[in-house]
C-alpha cells in the first residue's frame, strides 16, 4: 500500500509538470516554460514525452485557439517563444537519432520579401510536431532552397510569401526542381498572404497551407508520400532484372 502511494504521487507529479508545460506554452510564458521543462527533467519525465505531451500539446491548443479566433498573431508568436524556451532545455537531452527522424523541411521566405511572421509561426508549429526544420530566413534566393534541400536530404521545401511580385520566385523554384530531376523527390508547399490554392496549381507546387496549422498537416502528408515513393522505387529497383545494366 505504502509503495503504491508513492508511485501514485510520482505519477501525479509528472502529470502536474506536463500540465504546467502545456499551460506555459498556451500562456506564452517563456520563464515558466523553461522552469517547467527543468522540473519535468527533475521529476523523471522522459524528454521526448515532455516535448510531445507538454510543449507540442500546448502548441496544438494554441493552434486550435487561433483557428477559433480566440488567439491571434501576438499570442501565437509568444507561444512559439515559450515552446522554444522549453525545447532549449529538453532537446539536448534527447537521443540523437530521434531528431529529424520524422522528416526534414527546408523553410524560408522567397526572394524579394522580408516578411517572415507567418514563416516563424510555421517553423514553431513544425518544430512542435517533431520535424527537423532548416530555417533559411527571409529574402531567400531560389538556388539556396534547392541547394539546401539537396544537402539536408530534405523531403519538403516550404516557401512563404506575402507580396505578389515575389510569386515569380516560387515558379522559378518549381522549374529548377524539375530541371534537376528532383520533382517528386522533394515536395513543395507554399503559403502566405498573397498565395492561394489556385495559385499553387499555376505555380506547380505540391501543396498550399492556408495557415500554420494546415501547413503542418499538409507537410505530414507530403513527407509520407515522398517516403512511400522512395520505398516503392527501392523495391522496384531490387526487382528489376539485372540485364538492363550496361545497355
Amino acid at each position, binding site marked *: 500500500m505504502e509503495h503504491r502511494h508513492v508511485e501514485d504521487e510520482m505519477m501525479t507529479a509528472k502529470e502536474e509538470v506536463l500540465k504546467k508545460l502545456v499551460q506555459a506554452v498556451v500562456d506564452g510564458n517563456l520563464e515558466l516554460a523553461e522552469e517547467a521543462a527543468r522540473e519535468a527533467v527533475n521529476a523523471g519525465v522522459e524528454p521526448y514525452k515532455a516535448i510531445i505531451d507538454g510543449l507540442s500539446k500546448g502548441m496544438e491548443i494554441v493552434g486550435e485557439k487561433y483557428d477559433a479566433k480566440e488567439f491571434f498573431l501576438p499570442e501565437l508568436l509568444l507561444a512559439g517563444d515559450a515552446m522554444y524556451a522549453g525545447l532549449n532545455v529538453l532537446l539536448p537531452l534527447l537521443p540523437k537519432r530521434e531528431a529529424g527522424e520524422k522528416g526534414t523541411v527546408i523553410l524560408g521566405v522567397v526572394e*524579394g520579401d522580408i516578411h517572415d511572421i507567418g514563416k516563424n509561426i510555421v517553423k514553431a508549429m513544425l518544430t512542435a510536431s517533431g520535424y527537423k526544420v532548416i530555417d533559411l530566413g527571409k529574402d531567400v534566393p531560389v538556388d539556396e532552397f534547392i541547394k539546401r534541400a539537396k544537402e539536408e536530404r530534405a523531403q519538403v521545401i516550404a516557401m512563404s510569401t506575402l507580396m*505578389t511580385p515575389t510569386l515569380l520566385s516560387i515558379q522559378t523554384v518549381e522549374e529548377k526542381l524539375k530541371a534537376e530531376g528532383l520533382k517528386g523527390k522533394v515536395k513543395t508547399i507554399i503559403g502566405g498572404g498573397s498565395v492561394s490554392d489556385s495559385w499553387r496549381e499555376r505555380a506547380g507546387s505540391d501543396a498550399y497551407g492556408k495557415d500554420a496549422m494546415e501547413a503542418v498537416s499538409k507537410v505530414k502528408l507530403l513527407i509520407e508520400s515522398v517516403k512511400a515513393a522512395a520505398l516503392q522505387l527501392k523495391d522496384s529497383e531490387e526487382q528489376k532484372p539485372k540485364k538492363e545494366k550496361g545497355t
Partner: protein
Amino acid sequence: MNSDERLIAVLSGRKEEVDRLPVINSVGTYTMDAMKTFDAYWPAAHKDPRKMANLAMGLNRLAGLDNVTVPFELTLEAEVFGAPMEFFEDKIRWPSVKGFIAKKVSDLKFPDDVTKAGRVPVVCNAIRILKKELDGKVPIIAYINCPFTSIGSYLVDPVEFHKYLKSDPARVHEFFKETLPYYVNVASAFKEAGADIITFRDEGVSLDNISPKHFDEFVKPYLAKLISLVMPPRILHICGTLISGKLEIIRRMMECGAEAITMDEKTPMNEARALVDEYRPGFPIGGNISALMIHKGPVEAIRDSVRRAIEEGTDMVAPGCDFWIETPIQHIKALVNATIEYGTPPRRR
C-alpha cells in the same frame, strides 16, 4: 456624369444621384500593361513625378476605371522615418525596406519638415500633374499606409512588434503617439497638392492578425485621431477578415470616422452590408472583388463576381487590393464593363 462627380456623390451619401456605381481601386491603379503603354516602369515611377502620374492614370485611360491612385507602395512612410530603401533597380518589384531600423521610438528619424522628406514631394508633385491634366473629371486618390502597418511591418521587425502588443504595450503606444502628427502632415500635404480623396490603408489590423481587443487598444484611437485631422472625403481600407462569427471590426472601422470603408473578398459583402446598415443605414462601403480572380479570369468569373458584389450591396465596385501587376487589360475592362452593366442604375434599397 463624370467619374469625379460619381465617386464624390457616393462618398457624400448621395448614391441615389449617380448614373451608375463607380468602379475604382483606391489602393492601386497600375499594371504592367500601363507601365508598358505609358513608359512608366517601376522603380522609376516611384521616384519620378511625371512617370508616377502617367502610371497612376494608366487604368483610367486604358480601361475606364473611375479613379487614379498614388503612390504604388507601402514603404513611403517608413522611408520618411529613416528606413533604408531597396528599389530593385533592374526588376519590377514592390519597393521594400532593407532592414528594420527600430526597436523603440527613439530609433526613428524625425524629419524637420515631413512634407519635404523621402518621396513625399514626389507624390505631391505627381498629384499636382494629375490635378492639372485630369481637370477635375477623374478623382485623385492618394493613400497613406497607417501607423500600425507601416511601423509594425516596415520599421520594427513584425515578429517583435506583434509580441510587444502583449509584452510591452507602452512601447507600442509610444511609437504611435510620437509619429501620429507626421502621418497627419503627409496626408494633408497630399490633400493640399490636390488629392480629392485620402485612403487610409491599414493592411495588418484585420482579424487575421490581431484581436478586436487589440484593435480597440492599438488601432482605433490612433486611426480615429488621424482621420479626424485630415480633410474629407476619406476612405478607410482594411483587407483581410473583418467579420468572423461573433467577432467583427466593421463597426469599429466605421467609428474611425472616414466617409466610407472598403474591404477584400475575405469579408462577404452581404454580411458587411447587413452589419453596416444595422449601425448606419446606407453608409458607403466598397469592395470586394478578388484581385487574384481579376488577374486569373476568365471574364465570365469577373462579371459574375461584380454582379454578386452589387447584388449584395457594394456601393463602389473595387478589388480588395492592388491589381496584380500582370493582370491582362481585358480583365480590367471586364471589371469596368460589368459594373456599367449591373450597376446602372444603382440599386435602391
